[in-house]
């Protein structure tokens, strides 16, 4: 695929995903993974998960992973464009909601929306974890790292940066 159609494919996919991204960037990772790793082979599973790791370890919101994926596929300009493509459609909705002075307080509809969407969001985030894990675990050592970071990040309040640093160390030594 030539670079321009690759860029158009990535950006249009991100713009569509933006509108269904309940739960934010984490919820859409499986669809982005399938596009750039499984379908087109623009990145390997490990490269994709490393981009996720960088976006978690660096300052700023985790949505910056979209900039890294774009940069990987087509350079820094596509990185910026990918972030804009993913953020703009949902931002327009948020803008309209704020303009309409939508308030969360006391509305039965909003309470129902919150209760109804929460379990779906949880399922989507766990599906992301599952897809990333199956895409990166290639050895006993990487399996152990994934399990250990999942367990410790669930049961302790240690900053996630340490798990990523620990993963790098254990990965380098094994």
């Amino acid at each position, binding site marked *: 695929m030539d670079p321009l159609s690759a860029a158009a494919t990535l950006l249009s996919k991100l713009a569509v995903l933006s509108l269904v991204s309940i739960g934010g960037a984490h919820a859409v990772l499986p669809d982005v993974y399938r596009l750039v790793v499984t379908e087109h082979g623009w990145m390997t599973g*490990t490269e994709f998960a490393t981009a*996720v790791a960088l976006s978690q370890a660096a300052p*700023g919101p985790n949505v910056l992973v979209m900039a890294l994926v774009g940069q990987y596929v087509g350079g820094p300009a596509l990185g910026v464009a990918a972030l804009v493509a993913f953020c703009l459609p949902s931002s327009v909705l948020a803008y309209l909601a704020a303009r309409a002075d939508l308030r969360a307080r006391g509305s039965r509809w909003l309470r129902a929306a919150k209760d109804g969407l929460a379990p779906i969001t949880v399922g989507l985030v766990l599906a992301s974890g599952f897809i990333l894990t199956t895409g990166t*675990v290639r050895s006993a050592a990487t399996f152990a790292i*994934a399990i250990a970071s999942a367990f410790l990040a669930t049961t302790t309040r240690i900053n996630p940066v340490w798990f990523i640093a620990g993963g790098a160390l254990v990965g380098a030594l094994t």
Partner: protein
Amino acid sequence: MRPTVRGLFLAFFRIGLYGFGGVLPHARSVLVDRERWLDDREMTDILTLAQLLPGPNIINVSIMLGVRFRGAAGAAAGVLGLLGAPLLLILALGATYLRFADEPWLKGAFAGVAAAAAGLIIAVGVRLAHSLAPRPVVLLFGATSFAAIALAGLALPVVVLALAPLGVWVAWRAER
């Protein structure tokens, strides 16, 4: 006191740079404790709505707060403040990664980093799951959305458009 456009930019700039491993806790401390633009309850209201809308929660917060105080200019200032500096930093990190990704001696380290990140996303999901009441309908919707994406390989738009209206309808019925 009503913040200025410049004030919104600076506050979200601060939130963006603090946000190692997640931004939202810092948003509360800057917006409620430091700037006193909102009280705790207003912050919770904004967060609830930000989580219901599609898109990254913190970006939705910056837009809704910007619009409330300073209209479109306020929203733009909030988003640019939040994303500008971290975007430049992550692109620099990404370029460094691309430069060294093929070094054989770093392959193992990157494989370890990737595996740790995969585990962290699982932990995010498990923590979210703990915050829900373990009722059958909650488990049913959680398990269905997981299986639809992870096992059946369905596309997210299909899954959300099928499950979200159903989930909200069931919750609406349950509240009467």
